[in-house]
């Protein structure tokens, strides 16, 4: 199993509680919004990531778990008018 910490930037209001309870996993950008690791969490960081999830007053964070090697499937994912390189 691998786990990733994800943020919903629409729900996030930049309160910063996540960085307070999980400073090794979440850092804040210069506007106060969380920057989370892009790749899978290190095993030792999962507990901290879950603390961040629980601490968020906006419920803007979640931990996404999937079996190793399984690519995240996003049905209907479409960035209309946007390429992502």
């Amino acid at each position: 199993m691998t786990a990733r910490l994800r943020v919903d930037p629409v729900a996030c209001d930049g309160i910063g509680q996540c960085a307070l309870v999980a400073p090794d996993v979440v850092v804040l950008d210069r506007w106060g919004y969380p920057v989370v690791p892009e790749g899978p969490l290190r095993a030792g960081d999962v507990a901290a990531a879950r603390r961040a999830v629980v601490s968020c007053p906006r419920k803007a964070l979640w931990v996404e778990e999937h079996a190793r090697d399984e690519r995240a499937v996003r049905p209907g994912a479409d960035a209309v008018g946007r390429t992502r390189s």
Partner: protein
Amino acid sequence: MRPGEAAAWAPASGTTPRWPALFPAPQPVPEPAPGPVAHGTRPRQGGVLLHDVRWPLTDEETARAYGGGAYGEPEPRLQGDGLGEHFADLGARPSALGWAAGEALLAAVDAAGLSGHGGAHVPVAVKWRAARQAHSPLTVVANGAESEPLSVKDATLLRQRPHLVLDGLALAAEALDAGRVVVWLHGADGVTRRVVQAAVAERRAAGEPGPLVEVVSGPSHYLAGESSAIAAGLDGRPALPTVRRPAAPGAPRTLVHNVETLARLALLARGLPSMDTVLVTVVGPGGRHVSEVDRGSSLVDVLHRGGWPWGEPPAGVLLGGFGGAWAAWADLQRATVDEHSLRAAGLSLGAGILAPLPAGVCPVAETAAIATYLASMSARQCGPCLFGLPAVASSVRRLADSSAPRGERRRLAADLRTIAGRGACHHPDGAVRLVGSLLTVFGEHVEHHARGRRCSGVRMLPVPETP
């Protein structure tokens, strides 16, 4: 997308010199272009999507010249392809009803390598495979709400070939067993809405088999064509981008295809050539020129066909529109409009937009104007976009004014890295890509500005005035 109000566009005159000012001599224009949309010489061959059309440079000019709002057009020119002509040209639409027919169409789509023409170029087969594995209620959308003010190829296609797009939409809906089928349009594009509504009514009156199609006018903001915004809008929520959070099993799904993608699907399902051309909008001195060009065409030829003057080469070309990237002219001379080969060179046409930058025009000033516009078009939902894009735009403006403090470029680069990938949609990523390409492609010119030296500061591109 176009801002809703025609008044939001930059005035035609004023501090910004007009395109033709740089080209005082009459320029050769390869195709006669009588008006923004003339339907007199409708294409007749099977595999052809549309004939060349030249639109005014901005929607404001279109509205002034032809009335009827930002996408105006004189009424007599309204009629697209009639259903009778359409079927006479191409034959009846095949059916994709039932699992086996859907599977066969999916295999054909996969074999042809059909990918999205809204800008992201996602393979259609990838979307379809995922959609056919799920069972919750599905809405299939034909997206005609172009997300770039420089692009008019989707509006042109919908007006000239509404039935081709509706064929493709019906095929996708049948293959994916969709419960709801929608044509989604930009809120300001009333003319296209009337064309599509008339085509839908014509099909119903003729008893043409296929799903019931809703024609929905979205909002008029820049993000009106973003797929998650469309899904939210069709679900009765504000049409703003959202994040795909873990969905409950059985949650409704929305699958969005660009209208050009669907038109190609309608050709492909009939066994006609569907992949050997590309629809492009070339922004040149004479306006926004929409044409259908061969996939193997050189970029140089495409620019000339779009009215780009022969003679002095441009300093660079903006590929993919405001959320695209600058490309150096030296890198484009042997390039073709084929997306695969462009990607191999780290480039992309996005939704088929080419905007050449004339020599003598300041790329930093152009980028500052575009970045300012993009910052103003944020949905203001996500912190990195809401605060990051104005910060980036200010940095580029300071560079353009040659008033940047020491370390401005370093701070700008750091901001770009911070913002990338952190919005609900890819709007901030587009701005990051554009400004990043300025720093790499026009590095010397940026350096000149960073040292406080002045340059002409001339701007040419029709960037909408920030509201």
